[in-house]
């Protein structure tokens, strides 16, 4: 009796906790509403299974408690019942998987015309790069990295010179502008994750990974590194600020290009080849 009641309490208590939990996702600030919807759907289906199994078990414990004058039923198999359950389960699984895969299809298909920017992770801070006036990110190579060239831009690539370099933990982006984030790590794995955008992807040294999203709300959102990257992992934070056009442009006008950064250090000659090529373009 007590055991049956406790099993019911655990089952229904879990449901109650779910309904009244103040810990819940913060309001979504990107286009990935489909992820939230799939999670809610998954909650309904799995929740129903959880409650059904819990309550049924409680019923069995209460109803079929040991009695030395009774015998258990003897029924080694019941293939009808087993097949029925198998089929229902399969249907449930398909109901979960199908919407999930549709969302995933969207996630891996970057829309044409997405604005490409770069996020760089290294122990234990973030850097960002925007393509600048020409709209194209210059190519990079890890071998080029030094104090003057923290991103490792190829100094003979004409697309590099106008790239805007943001050597700080905070990034501003424009509301409603679809972004493709090109993710790069210089040392170990990191992961650029903003809970309100829902999306995340590891950054892997030696390759460029990516994901895309569209911010749909202005505001300041915290970046958390989501892939363990050594002792400072927990402190690898930053902010993404989603702006309206005016604020965004103001912020943008304060940032320096690669060319300007080098000039301010008196190192313009480093990119002479690229500048020449650029004039030929």
């Amino acid at each position, binding site marked *: 009796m007590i055991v049956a009641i406790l099993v019911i309490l655990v089952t229904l208590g879990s449901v109650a906790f779910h309904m009244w939990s103040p810990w819940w996702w913060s309001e979504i600030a990107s286009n990935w509403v489909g992820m939230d919807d799939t999670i809610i759907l998954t909650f309904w289906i799995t929740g129903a299974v959880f409650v059904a199994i819990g309550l049924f078990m409680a019923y069995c414990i209460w109803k079929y408690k040991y009695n030395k004058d009774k015998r258990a039923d003897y*029924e080694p198999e019941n293939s009808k019942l087993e097949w029925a359950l198998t089929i229902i389960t399969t249907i449930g699984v398909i109901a*979960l998987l199908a919407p*999930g895969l549709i969302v995933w299809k969207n996630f891996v298909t970057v829309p044409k015309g997405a604005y490409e920017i770069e996020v760089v992770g290294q122990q234990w801070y973030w850097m960002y790069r925007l393509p600048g006036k020409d709209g194209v990110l210059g190519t990079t190579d890890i*071998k080029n990295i030094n104090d003057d060239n923290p991103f490792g831009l190829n100094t003979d690539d004409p697309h590099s010179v106008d790239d805007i370099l943001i050597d700080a933990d905070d990034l501003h982006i424009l509301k409603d502008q679809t972004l493709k984030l090109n993710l790069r790590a210089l*040392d*170990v794995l990191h992961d650029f994750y903003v809970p309100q955008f829902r999306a995340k992807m590891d950054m892997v*040294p030696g390759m460029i990974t990516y994901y895309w999203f569209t911010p749909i709300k202005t505001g300041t959102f915290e970046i958390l590194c989501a892939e363990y990257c*050594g002792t400072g992992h927990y402190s690898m934070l930053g902010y993404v600020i989603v702006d309206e056009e005016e604020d965004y442009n103001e912020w943008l006008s304060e940032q320096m290009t690669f060319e300007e950064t080098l000039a301010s250090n008196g190192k313009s000659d480093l990119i002479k080849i690229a500048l020449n090529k650029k004039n030929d373009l």
Partner: protein
Amino acid sequence: MAADSYDDVAKNKDSIPSLEVPPQDLYHAKSWWTKYIFCQDAKVIGIQYALTAVAIGMVGLVSSWLMRMQIAFPGVIPMEAGAYYQLVTMHGMIMVVYLLTALFLGGFGNFLIPLMVGARDMVFPYVNMVSFWVFFLAVIILAASYFVPGGPTGAGWTLYPPQAITSGTPGGDGLGIVLMLVSLAVFVIGFTMGGLNYVITILQARTRGMTLMRLPLTVWGIFTATVLALFAFPALFVAGIMMTLDNMLGTSFFMPAIVEFGERLTYDGGSPILFQHLFWFFGHPEVYIVALPAFGIVSDLISVHARKNIFGYRMMVWAIVVIGALSFIVWAHHMYVAGMNPWFGFFFATTTLIIAVPTAIKVYNWVLTLWRGNIKLTIPMLFAIAFIITFVNGGLTGLFLGNVAVDVPLSDTYFVVAHFHMVMGIAPVLVILGSIYHWFPLITGRFLNERLGRIHFWVTFIGSYSIYFPMHYLGFMGVTRRYFEVFEGDNFTYSIIGINQFITVAALITGAVQFLFFYNIIVSSKFGKKAGKNPWKACSLEWQTPDVPPTHGNFGKDLPVVYRWAYDYSVPGADKDYITQDTPPSAVANAKAEQT
């Protein structure tokens, strides 16, 4: 065989196939050393495995206390970030490999396999003995890493390069990571010796009449898990060797060109993702290496204590085998956001959700075994019920993480921590605890104390559920895992300080009550109530030995002969509510057993 035609067999119900395997010569211990230390009796080896695993498991448990203190009450136990990461890493690795794998396969496997299949011992007793000592060496090497300069590795139990072997990670540029990799390699060697033994014993040394489809599910679970381990561990082994080469000789299997803290390292061209593939090709089956023995054992606990045959035995066997096979083609669900080609997501999400079907069948059949049973709420049964709830919970959250698009927001958050602790931490541990209460009378001839046992059960079950159930919701909110300081994220919907303190208190209590359990074991093994022969009235062979506890060679002069499956409970027409596996049909002439 030639003499008995099938007709003869059918006519004479007691007829059994003739002996195929020659009787085994056992090594009889000649001294204290060969009796207790370098012992070749699988039962003693099983106990040795179990004690060693639990001993190092205590290090894992205390590590989890320290982590929880840091998360909820930072500063009470002063600790630096590096130390926290060392705790996380050692905790995870110890729990998964050195505690659960060693305990289920080395401990339960050794103790139960020969007894349950009706063999005198493992087929290679000497190799079996060596297997334990190699495992012991692996544990010593692991423990040694606490004492080297820089301490043990803090790379996370997944040991992902480049971080695992670079200077930003504790132990990454010292001996910590080296000892971890060496210890794992030694573990794999030791395990292979034991594993081949378990598999061959089950295939070759079953007693007469013990067909594969008469094996208790415990044996099926351990058997399939061992086969998985024999295929999976080599991937870990080679990954460990390759990483050691990268680390010691400067090869670049897993190391691309990188700049760490402004310094260009000499590596070039390797792939960190290659390591992840190798790791999870081992790591995912590893989940089932822990889960399948638990599935098998819990089936037997439920059946014995509900006095009812396991529902759908054949389906249960098939489910174990199918889950085992599928577990080799789902590994990349741990890598949905790792940067691999995103199109893999479709394949791995599909295979992963397919596994849910045989897994659900297992759950249904456990519950349907209770249905119309005659349920004794003994302590093993309580643990079995708690296992079902916990496992269902953890299994269902697996449907979130396996469904690739849903995994994107949840990956690397506390949702994952909650999920895997439910499904492969707490659930198997509940089975282990339940089965210790179940088989303790066989090992020592005495019962564990009932009152202490019930306290232990309720605190452990409610405690561990309270630790992990709320944790899912922190994950929803976006609280990332492996954070030394869990801070108040600016955008979290609600403070996480209070709930973290609650979880920590629950963890401390849950951990502490395990010491009550150890006390119970020590005291009861001397003063517990005498159990006598077959106290639970079970059908399987391990309870039918002439001596309790069983002696070396297990079955006295003659090996038992098996006439039926392990689940003839409450057979209509039989006088008793169970018919042991070695009862010939002529002895229970009225019983209307359908399946044998």
